[in-house]
């Protein structure tokens, strides 16, 4: 009886979406995995590149950023890193901050800061790559 009532109370759209009271499905999980997969080769490339740059002066560092491969991979690294970080920090905030208002504020500030740092990073790479 209760089950039948519930199924009747759900709208046809609700039944098709099949999401329930959580309002969302597996997007967060998938985005975290896909950015993680992308970051494995990007991080390895970056670590090797930075070790190669140790002791180099600014001219050598700028020349490295200017190469088409480096500038492209740097932008991808910055975007994937902060996307992945935002997803991870979101879960940490949701787990440990219990007050509704504080939690929501922390989530918004964290997301906005991630956007700020992505913009800062991409602009830096573009400025160096396009030669200012």
């Amino acid at each position, binding site marked *: 009886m209760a089950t039948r009532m519930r199924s009747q109370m759900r709208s046809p759209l609700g039944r098709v979406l099949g999401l329930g009271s959580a309002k969302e499905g597996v997007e967060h999980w998938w985005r975290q995995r896909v950015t993680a997969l992308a970051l*494995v080769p990007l991080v390895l490339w970056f670590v090797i590149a930075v070790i190669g740059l*140790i*002791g180099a002066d600014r001219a050598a560092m700028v020349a490295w950023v200017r190469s088409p491969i480096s500038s492209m991979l*740097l932008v991808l690294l910055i975007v994937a*890193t902060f996307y992945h970080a935002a997803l*991870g920090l979101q879960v940490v905030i949701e787990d440990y901050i219990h007050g509704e208002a504080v939690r929501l504020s922390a989530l918004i500030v964290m997301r906005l800061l991630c956007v700020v740092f*992505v913009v800062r990073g991409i*602009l830096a790479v573009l400025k160096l790559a396009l030669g200012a």
Partner: protein
Amino acid sequence: MISDPRPLSPHLQIYRWQLTSVLSILHRMSGVALAVGAILLVSWLGAAADGPEPFAKMQWFLGSPGGLILLFGWSVALFYHTCNGIRHLCWDTGRGLELKNVYASGWTVIAATAALTIVAWVVGLNRWGL
């Protein structure tokens, strides 16, 4: 007062430490640390883009004792989170979930983190002329 006869799971403070839970919380802690490290990465690129003087200041800071400690912590967190992240991705495919395999992959992650950190710093300090 009549105590509830149902079993209670132990509190975190008196729970015996085990590799599985320690590596799990380290994954989260290293992830948070890496978010801070990502700010360092962007600041480094930003300093280079801003001009020779900001870049010189940044390079001086990174070469100072405090900067080197920060870089060392960043490298350990990066290698650990990457290795353990690959472990998680394997689990996501349904592989390696038996307890024996979970412990084996856990120790493998620790060994790989140590090896990658040592190799990176031996090569890095050599290039730096130390």
